[in-house]
């Protein structure tokens, strides 16, 4: 019988000695240069962390290459960040410069620290998910190709800007609380294979799965049907009944959401809100999407005050001003119509023209 329930490796066996000695004793940190963190301990010891970009979807070759580097400069110790960057943990200051040099030679991108645009948190997309409306890896690659100077520190931003990409409205990740989120959406209601449905659809479950009550039985066909007016294209029914399909390459695409944040720093966490309702899927470059993200970052970077996250900036100037400054059309799609819609209506005469 195979071993079970033994859990992950003990983290204590994965820490460099300098961390073990200074665990819980770190006093402060500095950012001596883009992509590099210097943490100083109460004991006076210091640790340099060098952050490099990763595609997240990596090969064994990549794993072995970063292992090589870690062995050469970090006694084999490295980590990943919560945004999927790699961090080389340098305890010997003398090895910092050589490490940076090798990284540069090998075309690793050093950055993502402090006032930068760090790695995009993204999802499976066409690489692996059956629900994917778009390809998260492709979008990420294109957006970060465009944004790379903000990662490496060549261009600066008023504060952190967290970009996220999700291939469907399930939003695996934290799209719903990101400065900029690119989310795959459907625009047509699911199509039912009645033939198949009559055999496999557990009709009551399928009906129950619809949050808006758009599904009703079709006793004639021993199937179900969907009320177009009520369907909000969430795809929930397709999870429950395999005879229902929602993929529609011609009409599927992505939406862009802005102004979310997770941290409790200064302001409270905020949801991302709809900026651009629809952009068609246009692989391999999705130029309209990259342009839109670039534009949003630039508008924010050139208008916000130092330290202001996207949502904090918009909160200060107001959404009406945001749509004007960003020169985005405001449409019926932007008006909330879900459960708490009326808490988003403007119940004051205070507004800007």
């Amino acid at each position, binding site marked *: 019988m195979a071993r079970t329930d033994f859990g992950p490796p003990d*983290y204590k066996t994965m820490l460099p000695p300098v*961390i073990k000695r200074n665990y819980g004793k770190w006093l402060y940190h500095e950012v001596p240069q883009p992509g590099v963190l210097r943490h100083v301990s109460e004991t006076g010891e210091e640790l340099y962390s060098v952050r490099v970009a990763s595609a997240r979807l990596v090969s064994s070759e990549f794993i072995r290459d970063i292992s090589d580097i870690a062995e050469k400069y970090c006694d084999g110790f490295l980590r990943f960040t919560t945004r999927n960057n790699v961090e080389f943990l340098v305890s010997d200051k003398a090895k910092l410069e050589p490490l940076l040099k090798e990284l540069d030679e090998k075309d690793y991108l050093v950055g993502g620290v402090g006032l930068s645009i760090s790695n995009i948190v993204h999802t499976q997309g066409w690489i692996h998910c059956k629900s994917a409306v778009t390809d998260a890896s492709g979008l990420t690659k294109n957006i970060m190709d465009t944004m790379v100077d903000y990662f490496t520190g060549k261009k600066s931003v008023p504060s952190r800007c967290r970009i996220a990409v999700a291939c469907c409205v399930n939003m695996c990740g934290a799209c719903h609380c990101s400065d900029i989120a690119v989310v795959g959406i459907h625009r047509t209601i699911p199509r039912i294979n009645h033939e198949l449905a009559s055999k496999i659809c557990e009709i009551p479950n399928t009906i129950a799965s619809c949050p808006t009550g758009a599904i009703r039985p079709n006793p004639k066909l021993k199937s179900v049907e969907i009320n177009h007016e009520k369907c909000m294209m969430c795809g929930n029914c397709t999870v429950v009944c395999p005879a229902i399909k929602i993929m529609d390459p011609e009409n599927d695409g992505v939406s862009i959401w802005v102004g979310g944040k997770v941290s409790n720093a200064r302001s409270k966490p905020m949801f991302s809100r709809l900026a651009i309702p629809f952009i068609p899927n246009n692989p*391999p470059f999705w130029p309209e999407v990259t342009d839109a993200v670039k534009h949003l970052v630039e508008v924010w970077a050139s208008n916000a005050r130092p330290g202001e996250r996207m949502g904090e900036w918009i909160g200060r100037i107001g959404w009406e001003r945001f749509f004007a400054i960003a020169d985005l059309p405001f449409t019926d799609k932007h008006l909330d119509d879900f459960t708490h819609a009326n808490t988003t209506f403007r119940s004051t005469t205070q507004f800007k023209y």
Partner: protein
Amino acid sequence: MDVEKKVAATPLLDELEKGDWPSFVTEIKKAAKTSKMAQGLLEQVEASYVEKTGHWKHGGIVGVKGYGGGVVGRYTDDPDRFPDAREFHTMRVNQVPGFFYTSEKLRALADIWDKYGSGLYNMHGSTGDIILLGTTTENLQPCFDALGEIDFDLGGSGGALRTLSCCCGEARCEKSCIDAMDMMYDLTMYYQNEMHRPAWPYKFKIKISGCPNDCAAASARSDMALIGTWRDAIQVNQEEVRKYVADGMNMVQVCRKCPTEALGWDEKNQTLSIKTEDCVRCMHCINVMPKALRIGKERGITVQIGGKAPVVKGAMIGWILVPFMKAEAPYTEIKDLVSRITEFWAEHGKNRERLGELVERLSLATFLEGVGLKPLPQMVSAPRANPYIFWKEEEVVKNG
């Protein structure tokens, strides 16, 4: 795995090998040098790029012996066209807390995965797992057995406790109020059964951040977020504050950003003051002056519950359940709370209903009663505005 077939042309994906950012296409191609499955993936994804649609479908449930989860089954929807992507399951491998690794461990992992799988990974999945991307049903068990030998277990999937995750905490951060990594490790070990054998209405996620900066994005994407905090005064080193000022920091502007006006700068005496009773621990002042300000000494966690993505009732950001609670090994109080919550949820939750949705449906008051907690104003941003108060029979005089 060894390779025979020549990969078909992938002109669209090839475009994505250009550009500065590391390319996932290049990574797949690297793997495809030795893995047929990676080749199959490349072909199928190229087709998706051309046709603008995915080609995966769900199949029967697959897994390893003794476990109800940890593997996500995947099959191509067109096995004739993409025979090498016929089976393409992912294994969710529980990452090391804080994502710390030795090169030795990573190499051992790569050796196993090259043998049993595609040689492709997500480092890491959004929940936190190491995602081993693409293997066959047949290889699942031997791969799992081999992983066990290098101490890598599977994480969660389905209606189970999902793989926990945490920020680097005290290992690499001066702001950490708790030993986040130890807490994650301890809870993970304690809840192995709940993680590996789905028995709940839906997924349940726990994430841990060492402080309210929430670098694990816990409050947005976990049913239960454990966030380090403190309840005494921020430690101030006035000497270092003055140095920041001398270096050009505009202290008036720094103070203006304190959300509760707790922060004050006495220009004359060059002294920073903090009204502890007004401080909401927003981290702002500590973030901008890490050398001068430190978190307080009386540390613990704030527990938030209900965070989740939009399906089905809309996204929720976790809200406060316990404003402050001690968090020291063996975390008995926390475990006790987790048990009470998951028991309540397992009993009352509907299929595919997240904790936050359950509480919304039954009411926060009902939930608090169910888990034995007293209502506190810290749990809400404001009390109710509608007059529709429920009163229980035992609260009023019996009559009629």
